[in-house]
């Protein structure tokens, strides 16, 4: 067990909470390459993995790191990598191989401003890449989007169980603000002992007393590949039934709803409080899982409110999925900032006032 105080409130940085959560979830290998604003993640693993006999390795690139993850996952170990937007782009080939080879792992993306080299400020512009697959092929990653340091810890811990359950990469989607900020959190007493996790009978860990195992994504016969793809797709369907997560605030009797996740949702809470104190009936729907997408929840919300405002740190990605499920039931507006510029509560209150006015007129 690592030397961190447990069962009491401590101040922790988001990036470090992720790393601690991974160790507590029984993750015993981390492979990564430095990139701001996630550098505290590898730093933390480098310092604390030795305490639990785990592996930390700084890889030569994000490409190498994700392929080391592929090897460690194939050998049956709970493993993760972390990066930020440009590095996650480089990992996409490996993530596609992991998904198609039905290997569990956890990937953290502490998003920064893009495209290209962009900057190191908070952004949510990797939404499409995260929820639509990201690399080549028909796969998806399961995507969790925490909004606080405590939630970064909790969801990272759960992510390892979800990855094992669905034999698929799970993506934790944070941003520069969540990764860098410090908040009080409570780290639970109980941790996962990796030796007591169920054995992965499919792992390539030495064909002793069993037939050999093969980890592979090549199926040269078309019907065979389609069969594998359908098997994987069935897991996504199961996830769609079981893994949708949303949080709601003030939606009871609301006329307007904000849909936002992560940092944008935190801004929304402040804006909504202010708007409500001015008499506006507005609430928040916060997707915690971005894939599977809370389609039913948002569709039924659209039946109840006059309009939806999607707030995101991008020029319009989440809003496309919201519009798809709302399907014209109510107007869906976008409040988006880009390039690392964070929406202010004042921006949002103004946008909400505009919508409320429109509604009356």
């Amino acid at each position, binding site marked *: 067990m690592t030397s961190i105080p447990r069962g009491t409130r401590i101040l922790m940085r988001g990036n470090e909470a992720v790393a601690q959560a991974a160790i507590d979830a029984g993750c015993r290998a981390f492979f990564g390459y430095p990139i701001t604003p996630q550098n505290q993640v590898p730093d933390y693993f480098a310092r604390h993995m030795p305490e639990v006999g785990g592996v930390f390795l700084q890889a030569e690139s994000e490409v190498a790191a994700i392929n080391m993850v592929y090897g460690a996952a194939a050998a049956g170990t709970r493993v993760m990598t972390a990066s930020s937007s440009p590095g996650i782009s480089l990992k996409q080939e490996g993530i596609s191989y992991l998904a198609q080879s039905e290997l569990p792992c956890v990937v953290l993306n502490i998003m920064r401003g893009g495209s290209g080299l962009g900057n190191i400020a908070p952004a949510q512009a990797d939404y499409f890449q995260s929820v639509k697959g990201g690399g080549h092929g028909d796969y998806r990653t399961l995507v969790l989007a925490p909004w606080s340091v405590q939630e970064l810890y909790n969801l990272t811990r759960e992510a390892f169980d979800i990855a094992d359950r669905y034999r698929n990469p799970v993506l934790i989607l944070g941003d520069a603000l969540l990764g860098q900020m410090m908040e009080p959190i409570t780290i639970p007493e109980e941790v996962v002992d990796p030796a007591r996790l169920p054995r992965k009978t499919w792992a390539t860990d*030495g064909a002793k007393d069993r037939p050999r195992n093969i980890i592979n994504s090549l199926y040269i016969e078309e019907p065979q590949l389609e069969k594998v793809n359908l098997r994987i797709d069935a897991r996504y369907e199961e996830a769609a039934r079981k893994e949708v997560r949303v949080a709601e605030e003030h939606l009871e009797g609301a006329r307007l709803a904000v849909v936002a996740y992560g940092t944008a949702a935190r801004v929304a809470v402040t804006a909504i409080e202010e708007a409500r104190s001015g008499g506006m009936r507005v609430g928040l729907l916060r997707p915690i899982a971005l894939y599977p997408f809370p389609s039913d929840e948002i569709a039924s919300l659209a039946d109840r409110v006059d309009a939806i405002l999607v707030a995101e740190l991008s020029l319009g990605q989440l809003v496309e999925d919201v519009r798809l499920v709302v399907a014209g039931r109510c107007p869906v507006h976008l409040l988006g900032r880009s390039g690392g510029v964070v929406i202010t509560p004042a921006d949002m209150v103004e946008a909400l006032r505009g919508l409320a006015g429109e509604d009356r007129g």
Partner: protein
Amino acid sequence: MAVQKRESAIFDRPQALEPVRMHYCPGCTHGIVHRLVAEVMDELGLTERAVGIAPVGCAVFAYNYFTCDMIEAAHGRAPAVATGVKRVRPDLFTFTYQGDGDLASIGIAETIHAAARAENISIVFINNAVYGMTGGQMAPTTLPGMVTSTTPFGRDAKVAGNPIRVCELLAALDGPAYLARVAVTSPSRVREAKQAIQKAFQAQLEELGFSLVEVLSTCPTRWGMRPQDALDWLEENMVPYYPLREFVVPEGLRVGR
């Protein structure tokens, strides 16, 4: 088709090879090298704790041929995948089997860094001076003047660059424990090649670090030659450019039967 073991058998299929038909072209030396790897695995008793990593290239189906656990890697990433396996399970024996496009072009970074880290893995590297699988394009090891589908007038170093001598490149690093270049053009060369693979695997078992055996190999199909002509061409053209020798040998390596 089960292979029957008879008392009198002097030549048999190695246990580490699946009794299946390989997909390699007639006269391709990939098959010989597979056999050598399997023989060494048998002799060192490695199959039950071996994890092999197949490349992208003509050897992509290697996972169907060895009886140990196998992983199919993305193009060029086998050394990183092997690193992942070996770091979390140092008790396993981990080898990769890679072509020259895979190892020396798209995967050169993974190769150099695994070597520099003295990663305790073994690499069997097939240098056939061409991209076999994709149709005979130029490889990083294509000889100057050599005709391939993407150097139709012969490789011109001024346009297409110079070949890479992988063993010499890696020998400049401190990480490698064993580096050798061999060929499989004649029975005596095959014996030497097997010895090199033995030493490479032994180096890993003794936890000495990174080991790599470069095998000069023929691709009769993409070279457009008969198998015997390809062997002769290799001896005449590749061996002078890629000298056969051991580049790094660890002190006190326990080899032999």
